[in-house]
């Protein structure tokens, strides 16, 4: 009732007519034009590039062709796309397994500590990505601290090859994007009505039963949002495979980067980008559906 009243007074007192249209144009035009020119137009250009053969020095020759799509079916490229899926999927799963209990724990803290705990989750995310990856190189390299510690306590004799494998890539991506899993899950657990859990307990459910039949289903849409937030940048990453994976082109991002900056085959690079964009959009739609469920809950 009060919500309707506010809405009515809001609309009735807003300026109307030409003045309002001019104000709308004034506020919206610069930002929307910038984003259309710098993001939407380039995306459309990229989509058209897929239908042309490559130019000799980058760019394209303007003759219609479908050969770029035929190349996509090459097992080499399909294999890399598959590997990227497995790596990003593993990262997402680990982020969920680590992030859910961590987010749940933050929601149980006293209010004063919650702010600090959340800030401590956000700080690494806002720190230079390259530097965070470099920190792991320092730890894991041949003469690094992890090897030093393991040799020191006599577990191993020779330094292990900890860097430059798929496991290190998973570790680096997890380190980079774990925060993005924790924040939405925390938000969901925090909003959970405590009376629901009390009711479940009062009706005789064990804590485990309460968790699996009340808490988990109600926080699952937010976990899905977090999963997309982690999966999308992991799947599209090329810096981590480059620095922690030893520069072998083993993820889709590396392959796209190479098509543009090394092979100079822009049309095929655009075609590979299409794969990434389609997957990103499917996931973003899943995320939008999930966040609608969060809002309606």
């Amino acid at each position: 009732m009060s919500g309707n009243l506010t809405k009515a007074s809001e609309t009735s007192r807003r300026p109307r007519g030409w003045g309002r249209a001019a104000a709308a144009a004034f506020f919206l035009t610069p930002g929307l034009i910038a984003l259309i020119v710098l993001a939407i137009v380039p995306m459309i250009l990229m989509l058209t590039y897929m239908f042309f053969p490559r130019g000799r020095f980058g760019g394209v020759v303007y003759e219609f062709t479908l050969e770029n799509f035929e190349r996509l079916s090459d097992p080499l490229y399909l294999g890399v796309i598959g590997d990227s899926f497995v790596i990003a999927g593993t990262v997402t799963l680990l982020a969920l397994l680590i992030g859910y209990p961590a987010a749940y724990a933050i929601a149980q803290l006293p209010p004063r500590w919650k702010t600090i705990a959340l800030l401590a989750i956000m700080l690494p995310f806002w720190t230079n990505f390259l530097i965070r990856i470099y920190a792991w190189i320092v730890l894991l390299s041949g003469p690094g601290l992890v090897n030093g510690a393991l040799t020191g306590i006599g577990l191993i004799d020779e330094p292990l090859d900890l860097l430059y494998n798929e496991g290190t890539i998973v570790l680096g991506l997890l380190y980079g994007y774990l925060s993005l899993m924790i924040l939405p899950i925390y938000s969901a657990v925090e909003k959970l009505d405590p009376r629901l859990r009390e009711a479940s307990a009062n009706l005789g459910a064990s804590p485990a039963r309460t968790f699996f039949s009340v808490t988990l289903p109600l926080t699952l849409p937010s976990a899905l949002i977090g999963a997309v937030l982690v999966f999308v940048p992991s799947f599209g990453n090329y810096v981590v495979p480059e620095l922690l994976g030893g520069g072998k082109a083993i993820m889709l991002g590396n392959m796209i980067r190479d098509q543009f900056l090394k092979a100079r085959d822009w049309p095929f690079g655009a075609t590979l980008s299409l794969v990434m964009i389609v997957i990103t959009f499917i996931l973003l739609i899943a995320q939008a559906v999930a966040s609608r469920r969060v809002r309606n809950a």
Partner: protein
Amino acid sequence: MRRRNRAIYAPLWLTYLFFYVPIAVMVVMSFNSSDAPFSFEGFSLKWYGTLAQNDNVLQGLVNTLIVAVSTTVIATVVGTMLAVGLARYTRSKILEALGTLPAILPELMLAVGLIIFYSTVQFTLGLHSVLLAHLTFGIPLVAVVVRVRLASMDMSLEEASRDLGAGAVATFLRITLPGLMPGVAAGALLAFTFSLDEFVLAFFTAEPTQPTLPMVIYSMIRFGVTPDINALATILLVVSFTAVIAVQRMTRLTESFR
């Protein structure tokens, strides 16, 4: 009961160890007196001195500051206007999606799109092309932060101002904008931090002879581990941490998750 409570915090502590041990090691190593990159031999500031004489780093820093300051100024003005426009003057879902989409797309996609766009219109590369690239992310970023603030603002103040006869412009300048300021400042700081650290877009859209600081760091890391990277990393860490804590003070950023 109490014992169970304490056990649930264990995953959180492990997460913090995971986050902060690598960073802490790097910071400690930046004060290492020896050039053995991985064993601490004594306290010294000499790597900070080496850094101050590294021309590549200094040039990269200057380039990055030019880009980051320009990005911050433009993204803050345009992004704030966009936020006000989207929140107060339209209900169009399409415009709203347009205003946030670039911030959601993988950076690599924006980078690839821009390099194709620049070559199609035969745009020369340089710091200005990096600036434009950073605006694609900076404008939506500021807009999102300002909109959070707008949503929490009491519209009755603006209505009162209008009822008392103030024009739309006066109301905006004297009521809306001052109320928005914490959000605007927070958005500006986040845009600055983003631009300062951004690597992927810069790598694609910069002129190779005019690298930004992250591009310099990237080539240093690829070249090998040297102690002055630790010093540089520590400085950037302090800058980012300060900015984020300032944002938290201004907007209670963490409360947007409640």
